């Protein structure tokens, strides 16, 4: 089913007719006296800006994809490895967690905290946009 409104269809038809006319129009008439070099300089500047923005969007998409992948990947460490990792991070950073709290955590909590710290570490080591 078409989701276009009556006016959108009319706009499309008008555009197509105008586009056909523009394509048939001699280049000199299209430029209408504007130096070709100015048109090219404008297009090159547009391409440079678009290239930069496209790179930024690809990076954001890649990060989102990585985060999604991470959330789907089961944690492949033992509880002891996770506890050791958390303890090491706590020692080396300014996160606050008493050693006794870590010992009292359930296995699920340890694995969740491990995952969160890994994610934070990865974010901190990624280049900022």
């Amino acid at each position: 089913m078409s989701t276009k409104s009556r006016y959108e269809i009319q706009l499309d038809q008008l555009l197509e007719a105008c586009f056909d006319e523009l394509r048939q129009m001699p280049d000199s008439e299209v430029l209408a006296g504007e130096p070709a070099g100015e048109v090219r300089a404008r297009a090159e500047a547009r391409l440079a800006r678009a290239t930069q923005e496209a790179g930024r969007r690809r990076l954001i998409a890649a990060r989102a994809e990585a985060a999604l992948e991470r959330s789907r990947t089961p944690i492949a460490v033992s509880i002891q490895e996770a506890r050791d990792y958390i303890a090491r991070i706590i020692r080396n950073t300014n996160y606050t967690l008493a050693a006794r709290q870590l010992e009292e955590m359930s296995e699920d909590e340890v694995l969740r905290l491990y995952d969160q710290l890994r994610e934070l570490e990865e974010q901190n080591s990624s280049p900022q946009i």
Partner: protein
Amino acid sequence: MAWDSKDPGRLTYQEVRDALSQMGEADMRRAERIAAFLSHRLPGMSAEDLLQEVYTQLLSGDRRFPRDVPALVVLKTAMRSEASNVRKAGRASPIDPRFRIGPIEDEKEATFHANAPDRRTPEVEYLAREELAALVASCSGDAHVELVVMAWTDGLKGEAAREATGLGEMAFDAARKRATRKLAGFERAREGS
């Protein structure tokens, strides 16, 4: 979004860059004129904004650049689609409350998709009507041009359009050239500069 290297029918990133940078100056200007046409009354988007957005989408891989299709045709099609999307997104808010994220149904693909209702809302209809009215108004005061625009709006082209206007060949040719210049903003200062 992503570059699908298994799709031989689309240009690669480098090929897209080459296609855009190797356009002739007149085609570059034609693309700007199409952007001027399409950005009439478009909420929050100038002609330059529209053109740059489709450049960006083609370069990021968001939009497919088909192989063996002239760059100008790809730009026109992409701009028309983007203008329609902008119109549908509405002018009031960047957040559309009618648009909601649906559940992930295929775990392998795990693609978030949106459940969009039928977007033929009164506001979309209103915006398209306003845009069309603004384009037609840009031709007002020239009876022959108005006739040509009416025929084009009805989807008529060439001889069928001429017959519908009731104009003679010479008068019709002159009027369709004037109509193109008015619709594509030849008389207006370049937008977005």
